[in-house]
């Protein structure tokens, strides 16, 4: 488990995070969405929330606190999903009529 205490793990997580952001950008362009900075901010917060939920569940089970893992997972998971739905609607609120750009239609 030494990998998780190393810089390498967070370096890899950082690369994956960059790909998530790039993928999100590509998806938004496909849909013709305008994503101003504040929406990116919301997206980052949601990612943080999702990451926290996953890490909370993992940590709790690692500690042997399965009740905390289950209840916390359900609670934070529900919050993450509801927030995700809200975020989805906020993101789509900027969609241009007719969908994405020509590339996505090609």
């Amino acid at each position: 488990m030494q990998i998780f205490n190393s810089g390498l793990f967070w370096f890899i997580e950082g690369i994956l995070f960059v790909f998530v952001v790039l993928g999100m950008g590509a998806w938004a362009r496909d849909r013709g969405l305008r994503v101003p900075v504040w929406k990116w901010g919301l997206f980052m917060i949601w990612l943080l929330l999702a990451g926290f939920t996953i890490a909370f569940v993992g940590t709790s089970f690692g500690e042997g606190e399965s009740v905390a893992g289950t209840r916390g997972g359900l609670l934070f998971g529900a919050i993450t999903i509801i927030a995700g739905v809200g975020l989805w609607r906020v993101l789509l609120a900027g969609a241009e009529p007719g969908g994405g750009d020509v590339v996505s239609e090609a």
Partner: protein
Amino acid sequence: MSDNESKNDGSGGPGGGSDVNRRDFLKLAGLASAAAGGAGLGAFGYAAGKDPNTYLGWQNQEGASLVFNRKRYEVDEPTYQEVGPTSRPDARVEQIFERRGRFMREYMRLRGGPGPITAESFPEPLRSYYLAKPQDLDLDILNTEELQPLNRADAMEYSDPLILSQAWSAAMGAVGPGPINGPPEVNDFPRGRGGTRPEPMKMKDPAKTAELIKVISMQLGSTLTGITELNPDWVYGYPIRGRGFEDLEQPLEIPDWWTYAIVVGTPMSWDPMYANPNYGTSNDAYSRSRIIAARVAAFVKALGYPARTHTPGTSYDLIVPPISIDAGLGEQGRNGIMITPEVGCNFRPAVITTNLPMASDKPIDIGVDDFCLHCKVCAEECPSGAIPMGDKVEVRGYRRWAIDTAKCQNFWTSTLGNMGCRLCVSVCPYTRKANWLHKTAMKVSANDPTGLSEKLLTSMQKSFYPGPDPQDYYMPSLGGANASYREPPWWLKTEDFIDLG
């Protein structure tokens, strides 16, 4: 890439599909990365939860990086308050072991005599104490007449599954410096050649000396070390050791070389501690703290200064928790003991008194005082009802949390745990692993001026980390189920190693 370019490149003809592919690739990569990143975080969390290195303990002798940065939480006054004329504690009756020892001697003498045994039957200082606190006389009699015989019978019936735990506790308690038998004027001073007192070394700077003592004590095994000027109010009014039996009735004059207090200590082993009251032991941390204190005292004496150790379980001339709080190691919790930012209540301190000139640490305020107002987990989980659900009270001129030590000891007399209960240590939300989750929660609580996080964290604590019903901690003979807060570690499960027949 602009929209126009996209339109032109989007035909799918030779050389024209690259943007579509690149975008699709990015979307796919983003999705895969989200899955991989999430899985990584889950695995990281699991590893963090399992990691034994997040059990901050005696083994981290050079673990300065694990020690909480107290600087920004330093305050001028500790979070208990001086509210009236103060006085020193009378250990003869206020120290539970000392009082019950005296009670037993007198009670055995009185039991054969005529008439009922009342507070008036006892000599001073027990008489005055029991007249002021008649409920403690009832609890002391209950302990002697009912709980101890019951416990002996329970031990015959139920202690086999605890053999490994008891063996481990015995092993931990097998080594350690003996009690101090000499009075301060004899015991505390170093001996030079020919038995004369050596001249103390001239130390250059109190701040540097404090740093030296801290680093030396950590090298000697202390997990946390703090230094404070000794408040005389924490020194017992009467000695309970280091004098002849007759001298114990003479007031203890505080020697003028008890200027400073060095507080050292270590946590109890974590996994057994969570399995209190049955599987934990105080002996492990007691033994380590005694050894560390003796070593630090030897170091100080080797510099030519007097030093006296005050160590667990009962070899004290003073009360250790408030001194530890004065030394900036933590704050007092509702359960009456000190809560540190690193190991919560899981800390068994010892003190070395000396006049080696050192810079004092400041007390800290990490929000424990406010947190304990709302939390009450320890009070709710305490089977004996010894921990108050109400507010702080004034004790000898100080406003602080005060537990009912007679109720407390009566419960752990009734259990089969290793000389103690320690449940209030196990259930405290601050007594958690030093991993990202609990460190973050602690810092959020310490830095939130609104108090909202305290309420939220308390709710989460109660919902996410439930324990058995308090009554279940009692033995079956007292209507309980002999429960433990958590499962013992695999190496203390007797039935996996020993054929119990």
